[in-house]
């Protein structure tokens, strides 16, 4: 051993105080990074919350709306009127909801009418609060044919700040309108029960609180989920869109899951380690990254024009099925890969063939993984818009494809009807034709369709604010669906990890 060398003279860190100062400054950097990182994640998650919250608050009126179909469809001033019916002695009266008079001026004339029974000629505008665009207003007995009669009321909200204008709103409290029910067909009359909302087809305009009804039908309280799209935003719903989405998803599922699972099984269990396999692998990774719009172009060229499948549910389902195929394949492979070789060896050792091993061991064990992947795939497919826009999915579909269940339906065919029409013309006592069984199972596949994302896209593109409400409401439904599917997948994955015992 030689003599010890003295410590290096310029080793600054032997000075503990300096060292602590140095650490303190570095830890500040560390801490500020910690905070900014947490903040970024928090903000990102916050954006998700804001997104959902915004959609929900914007879309809430549309989501929760229920309204009277008939009355809204044509509004006051046409031949329809809706309200709640009450039996009064021998007759009936109908109570229609309170309405806001949208463009009435706060003039001396209108002020003079307050508290009086007035008649209004006007049009009802859609929306959550019934608003009447007033064409004419006057004392009820002076207006010969009013669309609506009632008592006029004026409310004045004091200004929020001094200097602001007070807000004046005119409401009409419609008086009960007596119905002359003579003309109503008997079976409709019997359907009248006090308190039910009903719609009337009117013969005349309202005259002094009385009108004659031609037909009456219980008002269907429609809502967002049970209405077709419409030019009237207040009336439009996503019935055809969600039905379309379900049908398209059905095809997507049937196309993607078996094909994807089979491909995954082949690649993991059968594929030799050769060039072809590695090409297939790279190819699948690339397919997963192909922009969705390209899939749309492929579908347009191949399915719509070359194979002439049309702009149908089938085309859409197949397109999305191929689009999510890589997701299913990758999930299947990962699920299979996590099964230890011992299981295969044990099965083969017992004399099982390769397929039997797969069928009775590999498939059941990998099923949860495949399922998770399939759910993720579906959640991706459900929100896809661009490919469907490209194949020309229609936005205005006010009908439903014929239901896939039951596949066999009873109906009267066109020929039956025409033979019957001819026969009846000769002999009025000819029995009406009996509905016969028809196979209708596949018709929905070739039907035109719309889906929720497309409906959303279309509504967002419209200038009217009310349509934006509908768009938001559709967004809520769509987002709820994708988030639920994703949540389900996360949950399954958690459980899977916990249950994994090998």
């Amino acid at each position, binding site marked *: 051993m*030689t003599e*010890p*060398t003295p*410590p*290096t003279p*310029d*080793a600054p*860190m*032997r000075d*503990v105080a300096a*060292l*602590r100062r*140095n*650490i303190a*400054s*570095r*830890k500040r950097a560390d801490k500020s990074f910690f905070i900014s990182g947490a903040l970024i994640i928090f903000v990102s998650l916050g954006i998700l919350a804001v997104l959902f919250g915004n959609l929900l608050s914007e879309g809430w009126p549309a989501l929760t709306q229920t309204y009277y179909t008939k009355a809204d469809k044509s509004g006051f001033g046409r031949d329809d009127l809706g309200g709640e019916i009450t039996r009064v002695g021998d007759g009936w009266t109908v109570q229609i909801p309170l309405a806001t008079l949208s463009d009435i001026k706060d003039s001396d004339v209108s002020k003079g009418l307050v508290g009086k029974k007035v008649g209004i000629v006007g049009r009802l505008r859609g929306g959550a609060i019934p608003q009447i665009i007033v064409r004419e207003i006057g004392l009820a007995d002076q207006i010969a044919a009013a669309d609506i009669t009632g008592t006029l009321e004026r409310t004045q909200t004091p200004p929020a700040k001094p200097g602001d204008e007070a807000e004046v709103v005119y409401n009409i409290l419609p008086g009960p309108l007596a119905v002359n029910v003579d003309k109503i067909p008997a079976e409709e009359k019997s359907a009248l029960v006090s308190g039910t909302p009903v719609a009337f087809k009117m013969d005349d305009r309202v005259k002094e609180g009385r009108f004659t009804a031609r037909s009456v039908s219980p008002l269907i309280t429609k809502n967002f989920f049970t209405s077709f799209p419409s030019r009237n935003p207040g009336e439009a719903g996503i019935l055809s869109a969600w039905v379309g989405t379900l049908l398209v998803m059905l095809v997507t599922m049937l196309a993607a899951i078996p094909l994807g699972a089979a491909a995954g099984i082949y690649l993991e269990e059968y594929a030799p380690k050769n060039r072809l396999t590695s090409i297939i692998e790279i190819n699948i990774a690339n397919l997963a990254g192909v922009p969705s719009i390209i899939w749309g172009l492929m579908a347009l060229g191949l399915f719509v024009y070359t194979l002439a499948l049309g702009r149908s549910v089938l085309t859409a389902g197949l397109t999305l099925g191929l689009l999510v195929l890589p997701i299913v394949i990758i999930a299947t492979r990962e699920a299979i890969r996590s099964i230890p070789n011992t299981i295969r060896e044990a099965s083969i050792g017992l004399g099982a063939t390769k397929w039997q091993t797969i069928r009775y061991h590999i498939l059941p064990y990998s099923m949860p993984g495949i399922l998770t992947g399939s759910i993720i795939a579906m959640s991706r497919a459900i929100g896809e818009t661009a490919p469907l826009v490209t194949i020309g999915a229609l936005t205005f579909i006010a009908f439903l494809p014929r239901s896939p269940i039951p596949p066999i339906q009873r109906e009267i065919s066109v020929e039956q009807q025409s033979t019957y029409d001819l026969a009846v013309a000769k002999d009025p006592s000819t029995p009406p034709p009996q509905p016969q069984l028809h196979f209708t199972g596949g018709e929905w596949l070739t039907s035109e369709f719309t889906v929720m994302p497309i409906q959303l896209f279309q509504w967002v593109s419209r200038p009217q604010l009310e349509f934006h409400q509908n768009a938001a409401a559709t967004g809520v439904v769509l987002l709820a669906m994708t988030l639920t599917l994703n949540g389900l997948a996360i949950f399954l994955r958690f459980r899977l990890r916990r249950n994994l015992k090998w």
Partner: protein
Amino acid sequence: MTATATPGNLKFTATPPTEVLGPVKARVKDFSFHYANGFQALKSINLSVAENQVTALIGPSGCGKSTLLRSFNRMHDLYARNRYHGEIILSPENINLVGPELDPIEIRMRVSMVFQKPNPFPKSIFENVAFGLRVRGERNKAYVNQRVEESLRGAALWDEVKDRLDQSGLALSGGQQQRLCIARALATDPEILLFDEPTAALDPISTTKVEDLVVELKKTVTIVIVTHNMQQAARVADYTAFMYLGELIEFDVTNKLFTTPTNPMTEQYLTGRFG
């Protein structure tokens, strides 16, 4: 102090630790350690690390050598819920290394470590060595250059790499990588240098180089080394501690421990009857 385990049919008692001659750099007092899963890896260890000397930790696999070594620079703090009990007192300030009030970063700046598997960073040779200085925010280029050269010379690597300092540290051979890691640890002028089986992954020639280095380095730094190789311990260490199942069985001057162990357990181990 009684040992709980009995290898073979041998009943044994841990030998009380010998006090070291000369100044003590670190004193381990009643030190126990629990891993996050509740496993107690160290049981009431008492040990003194002599300044500017090499202290070797030997013992069968799983006896807690690495656990003890890693306590010296608080590596266990990187993983949640590991618990230290007792003290490791560092001279000259007499601070408790494992005290919760002490910042592990401060300790790691004073107590460096070289790992079993060489772990150079994916950076140039120069930047690997300069890492500790960069981390400290050292901006003086001349000083950094000087330290890098000194450290590489100190790690007996300078001549091999001086012409390719900007090449990746990962491009070196295993033995060179380990010496690079030693240079990296030296660059910040640590007070204690910990080696965890530094030659386990190296060929005999590289091993010799590293061993020579260890002997050379103790002039400037206190060294604690974990090794499986008893010849290595005999070659490089001034003091040796024999551990078994989380306990310190015997601690003594290397020569004495290898020639005349007081504890029959130690003898059994040295003669290769278990381990």
